[in-house]
């Protein structure tokens, strides 16, 4: 049963990821494919006994981060994108080739390199154990993360804020869009 579920979730995750990368004409649909991947990964985490992480994955990634992406896409109303043209195919193609070669090497490395999974202690993957770890062994990392979040919050507010002098609905000077097409 769990094997079947694992492969089903894995297939959804890969399909969603491919759907995001290959979808050129519709950024919203690309973001929704990413949601599929995120939800499937949440299922995989639960199958790997990481219950809290599985729920957090759905809650934070699928429920908040991708919604913010969607919000920005809708705000900017983007609908079209194109693959790079002309000379860029050289470098990008090279990058693609290297990625694929590294992936194949990695995949050939994996089978048989891990032993049997260790026996699980009571309450593994629950919020009590992770919370205890987070606030004892890793409390410094926790505090630093909170600092990072604060910095990100201030940064985002400053970046997205309009200049007070700039009147609403100011017709901005259009920039050449010829390169995009």
């Amino acid at each position, binding site marked *: 049963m*769990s094997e079947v579920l694992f492969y089903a979730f*894995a297939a959804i*995750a*890969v399909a969603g*990821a491919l759907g*995001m*990368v290959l979808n050129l004409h519709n950024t919203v649909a690309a973001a929704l494919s*990413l949601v599929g*991947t*995120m939800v499937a990964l949440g299922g*995989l985490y639960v*199958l*790997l*006994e990481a219950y809290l*992480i599985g729920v957090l*994955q759905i809650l934070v*990634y699928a429920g908040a*981060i*991708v919604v*913010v*992406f969607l919000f*920005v*896409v809708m*705000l*900017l109303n*983007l609908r079209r*994108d194109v*693959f*790079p043209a002309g000379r860029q195919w050289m470098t*990008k193609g090279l*990058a*693609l080739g290297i990625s*694929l070669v590294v*992936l194949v090497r*990695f*995949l050939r490395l*994996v089978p048989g390199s*891990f*032993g049997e999974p*260790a026996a699980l202690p009571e309450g*593994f*993957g629950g919020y009590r154990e*992770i919370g205890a*770890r*987070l606030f004892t062994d890793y409390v410094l*990392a926790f505090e630093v*993360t909170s600092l*990072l*979040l604060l*910095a*990100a919050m201030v*940064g*985002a507010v400053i*970046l*997205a804020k309009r200049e007070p002098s700039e009147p609403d609905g100011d017709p*901005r000077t259009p*920039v050449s*869009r010829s*390169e*995009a097409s």
Partner: protein
Amino acid sequence: MIEEAVALSGILFAIGAIGALVRRNVIVVLMCIELMLNAVNLALVAFSRLWADATGQVFVMMVIVVAAAEVAVGLGIVIALFRNRESVNVEEVSLLKW
């Protein structure tokens, strides 16, 4: 199941990396980076299950927080960029390029 999970994490990471390299829409590039972070998370969870040690899961939480921060700042930059240039194409943002 752990071997498959690690292999899947490699595949997802590669898809994300390729997407970040070939797509030109900044928002899609950011989404590809999210995908790569998620692939790393999957590997961390798989190894955490392998050793039955919750440390990996603690680090996944850190990664989630960092990803959230990255999205907040990244999308703020995207909005500022769109306001100034009416475009989200990465290749049009090359003023600092030598």
